């Protein structure tokens, strides 16, 4: 690559970065504005909105509600996803491609379609809209991501590791617990952070499957309808920081998946 091309490409890249981050910067900035209305000019700054986020019982309750859903659906997704990955594993069997396609399907179905169908299905099963319905909905959506990440990791596990464990006296269950599971650890950590984020971030499924108690994105949406205010910016910024930290930390683990 010649020097000029390099410079040009760098400039375009940095322009893109600016374009990407200006909205986020604006959002963070507006949260400090000492006024009820969003927009320039900013005449005074305040910490009030941010402090308000941590003092608001409503926001804290919604945060706990969202996290509970995220944790529960992640736990379920990990079990089912790992199970699926082990089933698909290294073996060849009749219909493997079909099982694989079925596994991936929930990840590629448009959110709104998935949400509506889940809502209908939940009613059919007489599951009340609310926490359980959202957890199950998120789990359906998350399982493919867990399965794919775990499968990728599993495919790099040398067969001799399992044979060595068997050779030294371990039955299949002990081999799974003491060899396979520790080997999958980085994949499972990466996948669970990803699932937590997906669940926490999800709006469509939470909106359709939820009752009157909102999750975080649903709360922000509801607040938006009653008018934009710096309070929303502050809530969104706190959520942004939390998810960014978690996401970047997970990326570190993800990189260890392919040795």
């Amino acid at each position, binding site marked *: 690559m010649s020097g000029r091309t390099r410079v040009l490409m760098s400039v375009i890249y940095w322009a893109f970065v600016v374009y990407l981050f200006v909205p986020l910067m604006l959002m963070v900035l507006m949260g400090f504005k000492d006024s009820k209305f969003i927009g320039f000019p900013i005449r005074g700054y305040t910490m009030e909105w941010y402090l308000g986020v941590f003092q608001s019982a409503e926001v804290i309750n919604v945060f706990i509600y969202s996290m509970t859903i995220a944790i529960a659906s992640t736990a379920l997704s990990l079990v089912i996803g790992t199970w699926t990955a082990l089933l698909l594993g290294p073996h060849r069997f009749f219909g493997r491609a079909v099982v694989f396609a079925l596994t991936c399907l929930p990840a590629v179905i448009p959110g709104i379609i998935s949400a509506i169908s889940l809502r209908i299905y939940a009613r059919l099963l007489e599951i009340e809209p609310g926490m359980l319905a959202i957890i199950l909905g998120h789990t359906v959506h998350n399982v493919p991501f867990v399965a794919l990440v775990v499968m990728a990791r599993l495919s790099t596990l040398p067969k001799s590791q399992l044979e060595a464990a068997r050779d030294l*006296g371990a039955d299949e269950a002990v081999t799974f617990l003491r060899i396979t599971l*520790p080997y999958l650890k980085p994949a499972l950590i990466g996948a669970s952070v990803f699932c937590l984020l997906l669940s926490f971030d999800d709006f469509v499924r939470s909106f359709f499957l939820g009752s009157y108690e909102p999750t975080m994105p649903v709360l922000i949406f509801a607040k938006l309808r009653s008018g934009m205010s710096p309070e929303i910016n502050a809530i969104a910024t706190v959520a942004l920081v939390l998810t960014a930290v978690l996401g970047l930390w997970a990326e570190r683990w993800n990189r260890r998946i392919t040795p």
Partner: protein
Amino acid sequence: MTSSGDVVVHLDQITKRFGDVVAVDDLDMEIMAGEFVTFLGPSGCGKSTTLRIVGGFERPDAGRVIVAGEDVTAQPPNKRNVNMVFQDYALFPHMTVAGNIAFGLELKGKSRSEIDRRLVELLTLLELETLGKRTPDQLSGGQRQRVALARALAPDPQLLLLDEPLAALDAKLRAQVQLELKDIQRRTGKTFFFVTHDQDEALTMSDRIVVMNEGRVEQCGTPEELYHHPASRFVAEFIGETNLITGKVSAVDGEHITLDWQGATIHALSEQSPPIGQTVTAAIRPERIVLSAERQAKEGALQGQIVKRVFKGSRTVLDIDVGNGTVLRAVVTDGAFGQVDPKQVWLSWEPDRLTLLRD
């Protein structure tokens, strides 16, 4: 416990197929307690499959595996009192050296104090004392190989299976580890079932070598027997360097066979007595050919000229054209041939150095 002279493993007419390929073809073999047996052969000859059948990782299509008198054919690896050193060592990356070695002991339900005692014993035996707390990725290739060996020895198996454990080491280290491995085998008195495609490894370490080819045993014997008296052309060519001579039998007198080869008369010894007129192949090792300036009194000497000479330090390799474009290779260890005329040397050998081969 088995004692020396007992049969540790009996492979009773084992056959294993993979699709259309017969990997192991009606193999029958006994391995004695305390023996270092090497299965030697090119890749795909069935040696590794045989090892995996004994370990329990493959089920034979026919035949039985009997370990210490017990039929274990249907038993999974974890029920067999047999341990394996894998080609890639298969050390558990998330456990320390000590954790790896203790793994098999823990699963046997040994107490902590017993495990610790055995750990010290093995770490000392394999000179790993200072490495117990390291993880496998902090070890060199040679150290990893020793940890794998210690881990396999830990549960005190009746038989140790070794699947080309030296293949990953560099040549210099390999030569050293061969001797160490043999030493450990002697000190522990364990029965070793070693698999390799490297004839040098096999010759250095084994009490007995089983040469396999296309799923069958070509020959089985001590390294000396195999080297000096190969039974077949395959064995003669696979182990060491050799000259092959194909001639017609002109006379048979007990063990003494006279061959007619390119107009020359050659003597060989053989227990088999082939009919006169039959074409047979015989093998002679390069270092068994004696060179001289004058024709020796013996019959069966050949005349030739040196066409190539390679100095290798302790020995010199000579290619000698004995007429009709036939080149025999000779190896000499002293400078005596320096006096001979390279255009006119005499080759001879003791009759018992020439071995008649089964084709």
